[in-house]
Every structure is written in structure tokens, then in C-alpha cells.
């Protein structure tokens, strides 16, 4: 892989992270005395003084900013006032639960979105296509918290098949993951369809047909790999949507992950935890975008070539 390409992407990612930290810093300073915000109301004057000393609140804004940046880089996000533990620790213990939900939802998204998008494109104008497209519009328009509530109403309250909230078994995972996964699946199906349609009309597909390559092989070896790039992009984009969606979905299903922690912390103004969650999500997003960018180079050598040429000129 072209090192210059990787380095450019790394620099951009770091810049985004720096912007996020700066944004949080500005918001934190603009919203009042951080000593009072980050510590609880019952904190002793000595604790407040120690806090001011450590974060350098009596120094200039530039020095404060640098001190804040240093602390963040060292993984010091302040202390959660709810239980007095480091904010990072409070967040990290919720991460596995959210990852479980997120990855299951992502699997559902891919398993639902990509095949239906491909089928819709291959059978363009037929009922498969119409059904898929109708479902994508519905899936795109229904708010995921409403879908969650409908599912609870049907499968938990009326049919009594599935538990409505909490964790513990695969049955607890099913409804939140389906709710979270379907909205993204709608977008993925739409993009897959249009991407495959684009490729099917390319001259090389006609050439392949003229050469007498069988249909299955034309689709599998020629069409689908070429249609993959926009799909990877949209899947990467939807991961942000999955994270945002996890916040509401975890609340609907009382799924004790990072999203629910964020909502509870916002409600109780446990700001150390809020900033830790925001910064961790920013980090996740930057990493996801990086992976997506690197996947491009792997999927389509032309992109890397293009970047190399652009770098030379």
C-alpha cells in the first residue's frame, strides 16, 4: 500500500480528532466553571482547588488548552461524579455490550441490504425490484425508536415471544439489533442497487458477454467486485448512523451500553462521562473512515494509482 496515501489519511484523521477535542474544550469553557461542572456540587473546597491546580484554570486559555490536550492524550477524562470513578473506566465497561449490539446490527444490515440490492438491480423493473425499493423507502422513513416501540408492542406485549428490555440472552439481542440494522439496510440496499446498475451498463460487461462468459461468472467475477466501492463507502457512512441510532435504540430497549450511558449522563449532567463518550465516538468514527479509505485502495488499485499520480504532480 502506498505510504503517502496512508499518511495523508492518518493526518486528516488526527486533525478531525484535534478539532473534536478543541470543540469539547470550547464548549466546556463556554458553559461555565469547569471545576463546578466536572466535580459534584458537594465537592470540598480543597478538591475544587486541587482540580483548578491540575487543569491550570488560573492560567491563560492557551495553557489551559494544552493542559487539557495533554490530559486527554494520557487518557484522563476526569471523574464521573456519580460513582467517583475515572470517566474512561465508566465508559469502557459499557463498550463490549454496545459492540455486541453494533456488530450484530451491522451483520443484519449487510446480510439484508447487499443481497436485496443486488437482486433488485439484476431484476430491475420486476417485482423483486419494486418490493425492495418500497421497503427501502419505508425503512428509511420510519424513525428507529418508533420501529423499536412497534416491535416491543407486537413481539413483547401482544405475542409475548421476546423480552422487551435488558440483556442476558440472544433473545434480548434480537429486537434491538433488527431495529438498528434495518434502517441502515435500507440505505445499503439502495446504494448497492444503483451501483450494480451502473456497472451492468459498462462496456466491459458487454465485452464479457460477447466473449461468451457465462452469466453467473459475469455477475460474480466482473460486475460485483466493480460495484463494491460505493457500497463500502455507504457502509462506512452508515456506521456513524449505527452509533447515533444506538443512542436511541439502547434507550428504547434498556440495553446497558454506551448510548444509554450517554443519555443518562446528559440527563444527570455527568459531564466528564459525556465528554469521554463524545471523544471515544469521534475516535471510532475516525478509525472507521480510515479503514474505509484503506479498503478502497485494496478493492480498486486504480484509486491508489490515482492518488500516487496526484501526489506526484
Amino acid at each position, binding site marked *: 500500500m502506498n505510504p503517502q496515501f496512508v499518511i495523508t489519511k492518518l493526518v*486528516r484523521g488526527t*486533525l*478531525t480528532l484535534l*478539532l*473534536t477535542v478543541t*470543540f*469539547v474544550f470550547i*464548549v*466546556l469553557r*463556554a*458553559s461555565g466553571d469547569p471545576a463546578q*461542572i466536572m466535580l459534584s456540587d458537594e465537592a470540598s473546597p480543597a478538591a475544587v482547588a486541587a482540580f483548578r491546580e491540575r487543569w491550570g484554570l488560573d492560567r491563560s486559555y492557551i495553557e489551559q488548552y494544552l493542559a487539557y490536550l495533554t490530559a486527554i492524550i494520557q487518557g484522563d477524562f476526569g471523574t464521573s461524579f456519580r460513582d467517583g470513578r475515572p470517566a474512561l473506566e465508566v465508559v469502557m465497561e459499557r463498550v463490549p455490550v454496545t459492540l455486541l449490539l453494533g456488530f450484530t446490527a451491522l451483520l443484519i444490515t449487510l446480510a439484508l441490504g447487499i443481497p436485496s440490492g443486488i437482486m433488485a438491480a439484476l431484476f430491475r*423493473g420486476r*417485482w423483486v425490484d*419494486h418490493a425492495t*425499493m418500497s421497503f427501502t*423507502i*419505508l425503512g*428509511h*422513513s*420510519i*424513525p428507529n*425508536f*418508533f420501529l423499536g*416501540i*412497534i416491535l*416491543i*408492542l407486537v413481539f413483547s*406485549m401482544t405475542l409475548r415471544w421476546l423480552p*422487551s428490555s435488558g440483556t442476558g440472552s440472544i433473545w434480548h439481542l434480537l429486537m434491538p439489533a433488527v431495529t438498528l440494522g434495518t434502517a441502515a439496510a435500507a440505505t445499503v440496499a*439502495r446504494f448497492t*442497487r*444503483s*451501483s450494480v*446498475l*451502473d456497472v451492468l451498463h459498462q462496456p466491459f460487461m458487454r465485452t464479457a458477454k460477447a466473449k461468451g462468459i457465462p452469466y453467473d461468472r459475469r455477475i460474480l467475477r466482473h460486475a460485483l467486485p466493480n460495484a463494491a466501492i*460505493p457500497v463500502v463507502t455507504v457502509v462506512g457512512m452508515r456506521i*456513524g*448512523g449505527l*452509533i*447515533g441510532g444506538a*443512542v*436511541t435504540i439502547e*434507550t*428504547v430497549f434498556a440495553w446497558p451500553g454506551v448510548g444509554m450511558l*450517554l*443519555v443518562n*449522563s*446528559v*440527563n444527570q*449532567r455527568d*459531564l466528564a462521562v*459525556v*465528554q469521554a*463518550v*463524545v471523544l471515544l*465516538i*469521534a475516535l471510532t*468514527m*475516525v478509525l472507521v473512515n480510515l479503514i474505509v479509505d484503506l479498503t478502497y485502495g485494496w478493492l480498486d488499485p486504480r484509486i491508489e494509482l490515482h492518488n500516487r499520480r496526484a501526489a506526484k504532480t
Partner: protein
Amino acid sequence: MTTTDLSSAPLRRRGWLTRIWKSRPPLVIGLSLFWLAVVVLMALFAEFLAPYGYAEQSLLKRLQPPGFLGGLPEYLLGTDNLGRDVLSRVIYAMRTSILIALMGTVIGASVGTVLGIVAAHFRGWVDDVIMMLVDFQAAIPFLIVALAVLAFFGNNFVLLVVLIGLFGWDGYARIARGLVLSTNGQGYAFAIRTLGVHPAKVYIRHVLPNMMGVIMVQITLNFPEIILLETSLSFLGLGVQPPGTSLGLLLGEGRNYLATAWWIGIPAGVVIFLTTLAISLLGDWLRDMLDPNLKGKDA
């Protein structure tokens, strides 16, 4: 189905499903427009259309099921846990949610368009900074940013509207920037500028009107997402605060009564769903109308 097509053999050979599909777009668009008109009318004339005040309680008639499901006939959609009329609350909630979404759209479209024009006009570092902000906005899920800001500053209506307005500005900025860059390369903009007209006047009088079509399409694409953002925040209890109402807040309140009184929350959810669906359909259709090249591509 009409029988006027009987003479047309090719059409008859198609399946009925295909025929419905073929005749569907205009019908769906008509229905969408009709629903949006209903929503706007409800929002505008809530005082006259709502049978009760949205905070009007009658504790003796708590948790009544909808009138058409065996409840009291005077409460068409039933009553909530405080004996408030669900229908009236939904109507008033439409007003709040639509109003916030409209204000948010106006803010986002104005800020984004202006920044996009500024970026394209000045180029250089101004362009770089604005585009970096666009990338930043696109990189972090906005719901998270909104939650963080509300946590730090506390909740109030003005902040909520400003926040919702800032959602989606990046889309407008990208579009405006691209359009200005391409217009500046066109003869007419160059001609006007050569005549000595001030750049600001060129943009307001000549470039902006040419952009309106594309920006309108972006608005229809952005509007459902703005509604979803506000209703999500309100649903989480972090948007519109009681005693105010919003469609999201109603659904959030109703969530606690799902087992016993589903009718408190579900109507609000249906309204959100139908509204975002109608605008999405309208937006797709508008985009196809304005740009025939995109027809059938759906992406």
C-alpha cells in the same frame, strides 16, 4: 383501475402489479402532498382543530381507549395518563415539531449556502477551513454532538432550534460551493463581473436564483432528517420539554404505557412516520423532475 386501456394490448400483457406500479408515482405524490397539506393545516390552525387544549386534564377520564375502539366517543384517540385528549396533543405537537424543523431548515440552508458561496468565492485558506468544518461535521454523528451541547449548556428552546439548524448545513455548503465554482467558470457570471458589478450583487441577483432548484431538493432530503433529529432528542427527554409537546416527546411519554395504553404514543409515531415518508417521496420525485439524468438511479 379504469378500463380505458383495454385497446392497448402491450399494456394489458403486463401484470396488474406492474400496472399499479406504473400508475403509482403520481398517486403516491398526490397522497404525500395531501398528507403534508393536512399536517400544515393542523399545525397552523391547531387552536381551531384540536377538540381540547393540549394541557387540559380531566383526571376522571384517564387512560380511556380511542373512541372507535370502545372508549368514550368524545375522545377519538383516547386519553393519556392525566386524562388529556391524545388527538389534541398530537395536533399541537405537530405544530411544535413542524415549526422547529422549519426554523432549523431555514437556519441550516442559509448558513450552509452562505458558507459554501464564501468558500468558493475566496478559495485558498478560507475554502480549506470551511471544507474542514464540513468534513468534521460529516465525521461525527450529529445526535451525539447535539446531546453533548445540551448536556453542557442545559436545555432551552432557542439552543435546541439553533442546534437543529446547524444539522445539515454541511450538505448545503457542499452544494453551494460546487455550484458557485461551476457558475464562476461560465460566461454569464464572467460577463457581469467584467461590467463592474459588485460580487455580492452577482451572487444575490444571478447565482443564487440559479441554485434554488438544487437547494430546494436538498431541503426535501434534509427535512425528514431534521424532523427525526428533533423527535429523537425529544423522545430521549432532551429536546422539547414539558409542558410543551412534540411528536417525539409524546412517543417518549407513551413508551411508559405501552403495556396498558398503547394509544398514547403510537399516533404520534405514525404522524412522524407518514410525514417523513411523504417528504422523502416528494424529494425523490422532485429530484427526478429537476434532473432527468438521475432518473431510475435512486442514489
